[in-house]
């Protein structure tokens, strides 16, 4: 692995002298910029982000309580054709995810039909027993999905993770675009870039559409508070949607109805876009020690008086053990072949797969089925002997907690580094909205880039950065206001 040069999204496999078709103007822009000018703009971007307070906190890292995520000003660009294929695949996948969740908390047909083993769903720590049988308005559970995609070739995209709980990062999509418009305005003259700024409005419409009542719904964004690593994003979104940013202590439940405390008295709440995990939602049902949630919230939800976005229990769809069955799940509910394939996945709960994993640890990426953020993960090719042996022991002890995947040659995008422009590996997280009227996807997303040479780990908590993601409008097409499917 990593012997062969990875696919570069600008230069293809050409080395670095012939840009891929559709990307000539990006290459021209890049070659026109002097190194000094690039550096100047890069620094201006950093200063702007810090002064706006766009920071994130890393858990357990006191020193860096507020860091800014490094931003690279060289954009990652998708052609209109690439985007059309991607968004069709995303729409199909998220449609299937919602049908799957609706099914496993309802009729459980997929289990009866033995498409996936029942114990992997019903015995899963992410299966939320208290919501079984409760159907949210319009049967939508995963209103917001941040599907992580990786790429290995011109048409080879793979889904790496279906983030169906509380995906974050969308504020970077919007702020990165703001920064690019300010710092590289000439790029937008040269390229027909689809705008992304309608996202907050579309999100608000999505929230409104799934309200349990009629008329103007009162929507709020529930945050764990300003010490949370994603608080900036919470406040940014609430602000841009024009809804209240609330903490658990701002809400109370009375007679199965949710209220928020304001300076003029209490106001009824219809839709809660929560950015806290299920476990903290309601101390009466989940973790009793949680001070972040609202006592009685689940009762109000089960009584149908409030919509929770995403619904409690969606974690079942982004469990990594379930993930390995996603191709079957897509086929089962849509009757279509999956347009976006999975990364090949070995379920270590199966003896054959475990043996293969143990025999090939040096080549594989091993992940906890319920891990996230790049923690609890082994990247075989770059791991030390000790790390590999530690994982071997952990795998043998609890194989059912792990999956393994081949190390992919993630695509690269030219990136500004200390030693000039160099290819760096990237992944991509588009944000897929599902409301009462179906799926909407803003043409863009969050591109994360592994800034260290050769590194494949793009997580912001592990030294990753971000880039703007351009989607080019189809030639002779008027850029759409956003939307697909």
């Amino acid at each position, binding site marked *: 692995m990593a012997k062969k040069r990875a696919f570069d999204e600008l230069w293809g496999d050409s080395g670095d002298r012939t840009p891929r078709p559709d990307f000539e103007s990006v290459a021209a822009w890049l070659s026109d910029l002097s190194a000094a000018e690039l550096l100047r703009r890069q620094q201006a971007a950093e200063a702007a982000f810090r002064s706006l307070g766009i920071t994130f906190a890393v858990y357990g890292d006191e020193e860096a309580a507020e860091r800014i995520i490094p931003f690279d000003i060289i954009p990652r660009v998708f052609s209109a054709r690439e985007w059309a294929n991607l968004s069709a695949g995303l729409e199909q996948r998220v449609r299937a995810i919602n049908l799957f969740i609706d099914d496993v908390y309802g009729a459980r047909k997929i289990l009866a039909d033995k498409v996936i083993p029942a114990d992997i769903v019903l015995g899963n720590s992410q299966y939320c027993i208290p919501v079984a049988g409760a159907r949210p308005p319009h049967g939508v559970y995963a209103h917001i999905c941040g599907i992580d995609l990786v790429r290995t070739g011109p048409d080879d995209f793979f889904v790496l993770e279906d983030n169906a709980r509380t995906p974050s990062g969308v504020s970077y999509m919007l702020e990165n675009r703001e920064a690019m418009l300010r710092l590289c305005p000439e790029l937008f003259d040269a390229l027909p870039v689809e705008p992304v700024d309608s996202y907050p409005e579309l999100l608000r419409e999505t929230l409104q559409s799934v309200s349990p009542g009629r008329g103007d719904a009162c929507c709020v964004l529930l945050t764990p508070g*300003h010490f949370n690593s994603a608080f900036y994003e919470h406040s940014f979104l609430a602000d841009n949607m024009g809804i209240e940013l609330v903490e658990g202590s701002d809400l109370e439940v009375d007679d199965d109805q949710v209220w928020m405390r*304001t*300076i*003029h008295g209490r106001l009824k709440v219809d839709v809660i876009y929560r950015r806290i995990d299920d476990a903290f939602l309601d101390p009466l049902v989940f973790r009793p020690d949680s001070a972040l949630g609202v006592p009685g919230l689940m009762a109000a939800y089960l009584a149908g008086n409030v919509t929770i976005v995403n619904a409690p229990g969606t974690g079942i769809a982004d469990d990594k053990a379930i993930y390995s069955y996603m191709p079957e799940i897509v086929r089962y509910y849509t009757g279509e072949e999956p347009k976006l394939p999975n990364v090949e996945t070995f379920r270590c709960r199966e003896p054959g797969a475990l043996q293969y994993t143990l025999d090939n640890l040096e080549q594989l990426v091993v992940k906890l089925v319920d891990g996230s953020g790049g923690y609890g993960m082994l990247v075989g090719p770059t791991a030390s002997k000790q790390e590999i042996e530690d994982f071997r022991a952990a795998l043998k002890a609890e194989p059912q907690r792990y999956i393994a995947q081949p190390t992919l040659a993630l695509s690269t995008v030219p990136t500004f580094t200390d030693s000039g422009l160099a290819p760096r590996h990237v992944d991509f997280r588009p944000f897929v909205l599902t409301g009462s009227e179906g799926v909407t996807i803003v043409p863009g997303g969050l591109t994360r880039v592994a800034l260290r040479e050769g590194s494949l780990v793009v997580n912001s908590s592990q030294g990753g950065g971000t880039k703007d993601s351009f989607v080019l409008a189809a030639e002779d097409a008027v850029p759409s206001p956003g939307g697909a499917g």
Partner: protein
Amino acid sequence: MLSRTAAHLYWIGRYMERAEFATRLIEATIRLAALGDHEESEQAWRSALSVVGAAQSFRATGESFSPANVRRYLTLATENPGSVRSCLATARDNARAARTALTVECWEAINRAWLIIRDRTKPGGVQQSLNLMDSLKAEIRGFEGALNRMLRSEGAWFMQLGAAIERGDNTARLLDVKYYLLLPPGQEVGGALDRDQWSTLLQIVSAKTAYRHLYSGPLKPWRVAEFLIFRNEMPRSLAASAGETVDLLSDFANRFGRQGPADRLARKRLDRIAALRITHIVQEGLHEWLHAYIRDNAALDQAIARQFRFA
């Protein structure tokens, strides 16, 4: 608006005002200390500690008493909740929590003030201290400017209310210290030290020129007291702060059609001040009167918290 957000905004107003007051206090004390001999310089810093109620907590640190140590304690000490650094940290924490209710300009001014002082561990020499105070004051003025240009919304309103309550408290404490901790027995009233003290006091509330406009003749203690208590032209006077509080509260009540206990307390306080003359206060004892004022101000603060459900 959420009650919690309103509370955050109110405390942003209070802490930004407190930070500004502290920077002026440090600045003026540096000047005053430079005018006197060693003993007078120490005296100046001792009184600065008393004004912000930090004399005891400074002693508790076990640090030796020296102008440089007090200067550091008032500017940077994280263990001193009233240091400029702590005030800005608290203001910024509240601003982070109420980010959506602030304009970008307001937030940026608070954040920039914080970034200026965040990484300082030593105040440096006297000149460096003065430079630091200058740059901080510029950002705090930027915040006030941004606040005044903000939409006349509940958000701006709560910050202004917090600032008005804090301003009254600061001025009262400053006057109190001047009269009862600063006048050394035996020192001739009206002597050189005294005059320097008085001009310093006016500097702290940035009113040296204003005083000259309103009063002719030499600086007189009772006139300064009258000036800082009664004159509405002087924005940091007790009457002006009390009046601003009443105006803000009734503006809010007019807009939303409801009044509460805080409105009544604030009006009563203003009426009491309006009925008084400086001679009454002198007879009654300025110290006692100022303490009563500080207590009333705290009671009003509590009434505001209850009325808008801050807790």
